């Protein structure tokens, strides 16, 4: 740790304070860096070493520009790792750095305790460095151009993950290359017997023939689906490609690296609101209750006002923080549950106070078991929505101005949930590996009211086809009409299948 002594003692105070408040963090290592270094590290996604790729250079250019022109400035950068790494800007004032440290401990606790991070790689610092070495070695053998071309393709698929797997009890196994994967057992399964044991005279009632028929048909359909794609439709398309695409050894390795890193960043994508809210909640408490000196109060307030500022757009820091505060208040006063929900007397609701004092307990619980979608679903109440004056807007297609559509609670909530569902990305599923019985890959877009951006969809599909090495078909709908894109031989065609 290279903290100056003045900060080191402050750091210790904050660490003790976090511990006393019940935060359970990894050890956290703070590094002092200057602005350019911070931009560099941020361009690499928070890691000092990543594999070489121009995308990092692009990100660096963007960050450099916006920090030089004062458009935006990175305040905190913390890496989910054991031990946690966090970066402090040398040019920040002491107050700001205190704030950042308190904030970092909030994140750190979240990384460690949230269910969506349970399979998260905790030695990512080392893995990233290993990946960098491996990619460099591959570049040495196969050339910059080939590797870059392949990485460009692979990275364009990096958001095609199955976010549901993140919080499952056991992590899905790492995909194996085709030639290493065990051959499946090909003996056909015996059709199971759906009949329940019964006496003759009861059989008609216990095993009604129409129900039996239905079960049988269902079973046949399942078997069919199983043949098309073992295990049913898959969303983790990177894993699917790793298992089934005909890849060279080095291509497989690159794709595997991209998949591993995408999986590592996935939990942060689906918990952004909560994660920032949690960290903001805790920096506030730690700062105000323990760390802040009187003289620093104004500076502190100024910075916080900046990070929590809202125009007409939602600020995830602010939304998350307000939700945690709301939960705390509601569970402290008992304003939840069936009895409260049933009460429709305005004054009574306002004055409701059962002295439950379970607020703190509840926010600790919710930070452990939710991701953004379930969190908002569970805790975004109508009252909260009105108090914060949330609304749905739509951009006028002609004037490109935002126009308020509605303030209706259910609509607001639906819009919000839609926007963050599946990490904010469309849900694309693989349904058939042997489409048309000629090895084509069939994907479907689970349309939930929002169309795909067509030019990007086509370009991405081409990248997919280049890795799959056979045509790839994507079914979706655009403006309520079924659409089918086929990527084949470096070209995409689109048609409207009649369903």
């Amino acid at each position: 740790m290279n903290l100056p002594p003045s900060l080191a003692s402050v750091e210790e105070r904050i660490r003790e304070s976090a511990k006393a408040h019940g935060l359970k963090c990894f050890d956290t290592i703070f590094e002092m860096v200057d602005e350019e270094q911070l931009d560099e590290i941020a361009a690499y996604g928070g890691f000092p070493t990543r594999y070489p790729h121009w995308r990092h250079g692009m990100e660096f250019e963007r960050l450099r520009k916006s920090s030089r022109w004062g458009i935006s400035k990175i305040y905190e950068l913390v890496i989910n790792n054991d031990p946690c790494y966090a970066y402090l800007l040398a040019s920040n004032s002491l107050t700001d750095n205190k704030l950042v440290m308190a904030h970092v401990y909030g994140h750190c606790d979240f990384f460690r305790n949230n269910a969506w991070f349970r399979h998260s790689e905790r030695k990512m610092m080392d893995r990233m460095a290993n990946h960098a070495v491996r990619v460099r070695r591959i570049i040495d053998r196969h050339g910059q151009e080939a590797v870059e071309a392949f990485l460009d393709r692979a990275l364009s698929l990096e958001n095609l993950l199955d976010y549901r797997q993140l919080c499952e009890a056991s992590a899905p196994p790492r995909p194996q290359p085709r030639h290493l994967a065990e051959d499946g057992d090909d003996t056909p399964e015996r059709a199971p017997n759906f009949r329940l044991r019964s006496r003759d005279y009861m059989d008609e009632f216990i095993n009604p023939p129409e129900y039996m028929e239905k079960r049988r048909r269902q079973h046949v359909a399942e078997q069919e689906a199983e043949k098309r794609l073992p295990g049913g439709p898959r969303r983790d398309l990177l894993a699917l490609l790793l298992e089934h695409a005909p890849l060279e050894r080095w291509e497989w390795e690159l794709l595997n690296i991209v998949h591993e890193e995408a999986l590592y960043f996935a939990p942060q994508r689906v918990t952004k609101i909560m994660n920032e809210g949690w960290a903001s909640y805790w920096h506030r408490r730690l700062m105000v209750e323990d760390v802040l000196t009187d003289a620093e109060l104004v500076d502190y307030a100024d910075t916080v006002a900046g990070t929590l500022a809202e125009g007409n757009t939602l600020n995830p820091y602010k939304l998350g923080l307000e939700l945690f505060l709301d939960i705390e208040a509601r569970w402290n006063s008992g304003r939840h549950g069936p009895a409260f929900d049933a009460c429709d007397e305005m004054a009574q609701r306002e004055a409701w106070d059962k002295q439950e004092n379970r607020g703190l307990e509840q926010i600790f619980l919710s930070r452990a078991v939710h991701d953004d979608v379930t969190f908002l679903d569970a805790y975004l109440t109508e009252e909260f929505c009105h108090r914060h004056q949330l609304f749905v807007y739509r951009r006028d297609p002609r004037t490109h101005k935002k126009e308020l559509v509605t303030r209706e609670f259910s609509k607001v909530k639906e819009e919000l949930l839609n926007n963050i569902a599946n990490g904010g990305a469309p849900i694309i599923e693989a349904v058939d590996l042997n489409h048309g019985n000629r090895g084509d890959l069939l994907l479907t877009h689970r349309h939930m009211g929002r169309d795909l951006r067509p030019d990007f969809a086509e370009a991405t599909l081409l990248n997919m086809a280049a890795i799959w090495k056979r045509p790839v078909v994507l079914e979706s709908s655009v403006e309520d009409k079924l659409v089918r894109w086929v990527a084949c031989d470096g070209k995409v065609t689109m048609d409207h299948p009649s369903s």
Partner: protein
Amino acid sequence: MLGRIETDHRRFRQIVHGTIRRDLKRYVSKGELLGRSSGGTISIPVPQIDLPHFTFGSTEGSGVGRGEGEGEEGEAGEAEGQHVLEVEVGLDELARILGEELELPDIRPRGEADIVSEHARWSGIRRVGPESLRHFKRTYREALKRQISLGQFDPAHPVVIPVRDDRRYRSSQVKRRPESRAVIIHMMDVSGSMGTEQKEIVRIEAFWIDTWLRHQYKAIQTVYIVHDAVAREVSQHDFYHLRESGGTKISSAYQLCLDTIRTRFGSGDWNIYPFHFSDGDNWSSKDTAGCVELLRANLLPQCNLFCYGQVRSAYGSGQFKRDLDQALPGEERLVTSAIADRDGILGSIRDFLGKGR
């Protein structure tokens, strides 16, 4: 641990340059780079250099906001076109890209031998000189050499003592660098027949020619002349915005051009590039004959290159280019080029500057 980003950053810039080069035609014909330059750099919008992903179409962009929901004006800054990246490129670099794409040869300036500037640099070493200029490292190296060769150097006890002969001194050397000066004289026909579109084409072409020549010459000046029946010198702003009407007497512009050269750039050490753009209609054939005479007798001998670009317009006859080509065949300092529309701009730049003069 740091320093790797430079490699990635350089690679990114390379890709950007490749993209600009590929799309150069579009940038040129749309003229969207004009007015974007400031202080020697230009910011270029590069669409879709980012990797494609499956995303939602964002054109109708809906979402959740907060607050009163009023006063939504003035937030055009966060419009959703986030996939257009603005990249800053130096004008020099842009000229290089243009040069590569059009395979323009470097220009060999005139008067190379005549004009030189002198720079003194501390690049030499001498054995004599004032103590204040003594070169420590060299001196000790000499001393070390001497001691080793005499067998006086003991690695276990490394003491190096220079003597008088070992001393070395910095000396200044004068470097002579040829410097070339150049002037671009833009002439444009602003008579009634030149429409907005024609002027826009001239504007775009003049911008790219400027960019290229500025890349080739250190010191460059620009003169703008407009003419209808009479010619006069105007500012850059007026050159692009003026709209006149009336007849066309091209000789008036050529005469003014000649006068300007004689009074201001006549010392013989200037590289002179007159460019003339019109729609090819001249008042009379007598005036055209006058133009030819001016060119043959006075202008061409003084210029590196005289370029005439004829922009096609609905009213122009396009006669002037034909007349020039007929009257002055095989004159290698005269280049004429017809510009049909915006897509013709690149071709005509190649015509003009492809000779490397």
